[in-house]
């Protein structure tokens, strides 16, 4: 870039004030373009003013233009001349160049601002760092001084400590010395004592001799008569046997004593073992069942199995009586193990409790707790609702029972109840009516069926009669007249009977539906009676009048 400041170029003098106003604007107002050629974005100063006009004067326009063109081209801008040669200025290119230059200028300004900002920042940082450095230096000095002080104190204390140790050693040495002195004096005294004692014994012996030698007859016992022994026995000589017996007696006494003590100890032992066993069982029961947790199983599995084995062993072998070392050790070890487990368990529970109190919970616990709370809330609501219902019902009940004063209301209430009842009864009546209608329908159908049945039977009977007639007529040459006579009577009987039956049936059918049953039974019976009377055919009559068709068919079959 060219150095704008260093080039002493005359600047246009016209409207330099306006130039300064426009320096901040980015837009270039075209009417001013003709007036001014150059615009320098420099702060106002009278020297610059002259500088602006110093570059280009009326004399050196061409030179200045060519100079500018040269500069611009070197900077990479397109030429301001219209053609490569010639003096025609390309306004567009000039404008473009100017614009480019302005843009460049703005960029440079910005860059400068930034640089200045950075410069300021760096300056302040630098100040700050210098302050910090100064403070740290001060602190370092202080701590160094402190260290020195503490070291000094430490040295003093150590020397004190050494002194005290020395004193202690001295005291200990003194104590040892005194003890030695005491022991030496004690031995000396003992020795002296022994010497004196020996002398004393000698004197005693001498005295004893003298006393004995005197043959003092005074030393005697005068007794009126000798008393018997306390236990009544006579005195015995002292012999070896008695000695042996004495020894034996003594040993017996000792053994008795030892046996008693051992019995007591055995009892105590058994009691304690029992207590230990109980404790073991209780500890096992207290411990949480660990079969659910697979993780812990691998740790406690072998222990549990050991315990179970132990329990099994102990129960089997009845360990109360065994008292050997290994058994005892096993028992105590197993109890110690279990006690440790119980302790761990209790510690875990304590930790859990403390965690719960502090608020840091497991996920599981949180959810369950929330659920629990929700459920409790729900239940509470339910309880409240139920309570309210109960209250209202109670109130109503009370009102009903306790308010005969208000007649209208009671009447109303009564009416209400009556209405309810009436409606219920009406419904029931309706149902009843429906049922009745159904029954009526059924009965009608039954009667129709019965009538049909009767008609059919009548027809069938007539057919049968006709067939039998034919039969008899055909067989009348073979058979006697009496038979023929009898058969019409039989037939007449049957037809009459049938008619009667039909009449009875039709009469009876109206009041009851159910008579169809016995009626059919009767008809069956009568038909059976008829068949019995007739010597030829034993017609099978199906009972029940629900199968008239079958009956017909069977008859038809028979007839065929």
């Amino acid at each position: 870039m060219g150095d704008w400041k260093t080039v002493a170029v005359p600047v246009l003098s016209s409207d330099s004030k306006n130039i300064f106003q426009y320096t901040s604007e980015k837009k270039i107002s075209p009417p001013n373009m003709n007036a001014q050629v150059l615009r320098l974005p420099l702060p106002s100063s009278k020297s610059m003013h002259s500088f602006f006009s110093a570059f280009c004067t009326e004399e050196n326009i061409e030179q200045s233009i060519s100079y500018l063109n040269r500069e611009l081209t070197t900077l990479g801008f397109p030429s301001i001349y219209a053609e490569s040669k010639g003096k025609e200025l390309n306004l567009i290119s000039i404008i473009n160049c100017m614009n480019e230059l302005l843009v460049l200028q703005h960029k440079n300004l910005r860059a400068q601002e930034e640089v200045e900002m950075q410069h300021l920042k760096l300056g302040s940082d630098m100040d700050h760092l210098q302050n910090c450095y100064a403070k740290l230096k001060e602190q370092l000095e202080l701590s160094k001084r402190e260290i020195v002080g503490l070291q000094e104190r430490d040295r003093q204390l150590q020397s004190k400590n050494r002194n005290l140790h020395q004193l202690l050693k001295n005291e200990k040495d003194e104590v040892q010395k005194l003890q030695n002195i005491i022991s030496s004096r004690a031995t000396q005294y003992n020795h002296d004592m022994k010497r004196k004692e020996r002398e004393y014994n000698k004197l005693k012996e001498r005295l004893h001799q003298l006393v004995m030698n005197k043959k003092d007859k005074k030393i005697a016992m005068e007794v009126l008569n000798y008393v018997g022994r306390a236990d009544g026995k006579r005195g015995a000589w002292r012999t070896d046997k008695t000695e042996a017996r004495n020894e034996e007696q003594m040993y017996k006494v000792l053994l008795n004593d030892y046996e008693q003590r051992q019995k007591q100890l055995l009892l105590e032992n058994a009691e304690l073992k029992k207590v230990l066993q109980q404790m073991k069982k209780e500890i096992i029961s207290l411990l949480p069942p660990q079969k659910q947790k697979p993780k812990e199983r691998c740790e406690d599995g072998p222990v549990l199995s050991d315990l179970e084995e132990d329990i099994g062993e102990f129960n089997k072998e009845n360990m109360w009586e065994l008292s050997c070392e290994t058994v005892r050790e096993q028992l105590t070890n197993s109890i110690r193990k279990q006690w440790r487990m119980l302790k761990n368990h209790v510690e875990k529970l304590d930790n859990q409790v403390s965690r719960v109190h502090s608020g840091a919970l497991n996920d599981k616990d949180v959810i369950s707790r929330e659920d629990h709370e929700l459920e409790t809330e729900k239940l509470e609501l339910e309880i409240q609702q139920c309570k309210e219902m109960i209250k209202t019902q109670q109130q109503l009940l009370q009102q009903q029972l306790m308010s005969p004063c208000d007649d209208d209301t009671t009447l109303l209430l009564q009416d209400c109840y009556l209405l309810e009842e009436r409606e219920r009864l009406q419904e029931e009546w309706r149902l009843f009516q429906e049922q009745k209608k159904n029954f009526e329908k059924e009965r009608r159908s039954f009667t129709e069926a019965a009538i049909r049945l009767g008609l059919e039977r009548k027809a069938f009977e007539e057919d049968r009669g006709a067939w039998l007639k034919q039969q008899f007529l055909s067989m009348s040459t073979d058979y006697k007249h009496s038979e023929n006579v009898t058969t019409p009577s039989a037939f007449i009987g049957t037809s009459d009977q049938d008619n009667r039956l039909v009449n009875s049936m039709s009469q009876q059918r109206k009041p009851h539906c159910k008579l169809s049953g016995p009626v059919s039974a009767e008809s069956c019976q009568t038909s059976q009676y008829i068949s019995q009377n007739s010597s030829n055919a034993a017609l099978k009559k199906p009972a029940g009048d629900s199968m008239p068709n079958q009956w017909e068919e069977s008859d038809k079959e028979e007839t065929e």
Partner: protein
Amino acid sequence: MDFSELFKLSGLLGRFSPDGKCLASCVQYRLIIRDVNTLQILQLYTCLDQIQYIEWSSDSLFILCAMYKRGIVQVWSLEQPDWHCKIDEGSAGLVASCWSPDGRHILNTTEFHLRITVWSLCTKSVSYIKYPKACQQGIAFTKDGRYMAVAERRDCKDFVSLFVCSNWQLLRHFDTETQDLFGIEWAPNGCILAVWDTCLEYKILLYSLDGRLLSTYQAYEWSLGIKSIAWSPSSQFLAIGSYDEKVRILNHVTWKKITEFEHPATVTNTKTIVYKEVEKSPSVETERFSFPPTRALASSVFSTQSKYDISQVPVSFQYIKPVADRANPKMGIGMLAFSPDNCFLATRNDNIPNAVWIWDIQKLKLFVVLEQLCAIQSFQWDPRQPRLAVCTGNSKVYLWSPAGCVSVQVPTEGDFQIVSLCWHPSGDSMALLKIEAVKMNEVGDIYLY
């Protein structure tokens, strides 16, 4: 509580017979036998000289009276008042005399402890035991009376001889590892003998009946050692009181110390009950004064009633530090006694002479402290129940039982300084002995206090 009349006594020699029927007391040279219930004089014997010592035989049929100055022992029979027996030691002199457990032999210790002569009342035989040890408790009999242990000293070494009492045959003779044997005592079960050394050396040895050394116990060196010992009635524990104001309890299984009882000047444990004797000044109504003052009034004015108050823990006692340059200083545990049911141990710390410390053996803890106004003279357990009688040299007797404690004023004219007491074998009554007098009192039901 009934009190009997006052009887004259000399030398603090008032003894109940082992069967509890008679009370023997002596006045100068007379021996008076009274019936316990009626206090009537049953027998009256006259001896040759002032009696220094009396002892009943174990079957209560004989009583010996020893006169040390003359060297004579006289034996009297209760069944036959005419029967008499006199043992004269002559120039050998007499220092101590006692019965053998069968009640038919008398053991006399001659002067300078030259020998012990065993006189028999049944036969004409005499036995001698040479070189007996001149110590406080040199002869000890087992409770069942079968064996006797005698401490001996020959050539500046201590020995113990065990004799069979039935025929005085020597059973065992062994030396002890003591510097200067101070005392021997059998355990109540008769199988273990405790032997302890002089106070210059804290050492106690336990020997079995057949002479084997079972165990040695030494708590510390150089300071003054054992002052007193006591076996528990079940032989389970051995309590050793020493000059360092502590009682150490050894157990019979391992012979190791199971606990230490300290007797500090300040009791701080809140579970201990401290009974403090306080005087309640009698209210004297001035109108009642008359001249000359009646005896009863005089006694009531001069004798101060006292009662027990329960002091709040912590309690401080009056602590006496004895002069250091005197021998046998009054410090340490001088008195030890187990209760007959093996539940309590009563001790006295000579540094705190006004207090009786009662320890609960079941819990091995201090149970009760009785703080008296005067120094404790003696205390004795009731032979049947855990009841302790304490006398402090004034005219009151103090009784403690787990139910409470009570102070009983002895109704007497003037001052009755009780220095000693002994219980009747049945525990129903006890004799309160003061110098120059004896008084018996029936002990009824204890008042709860």
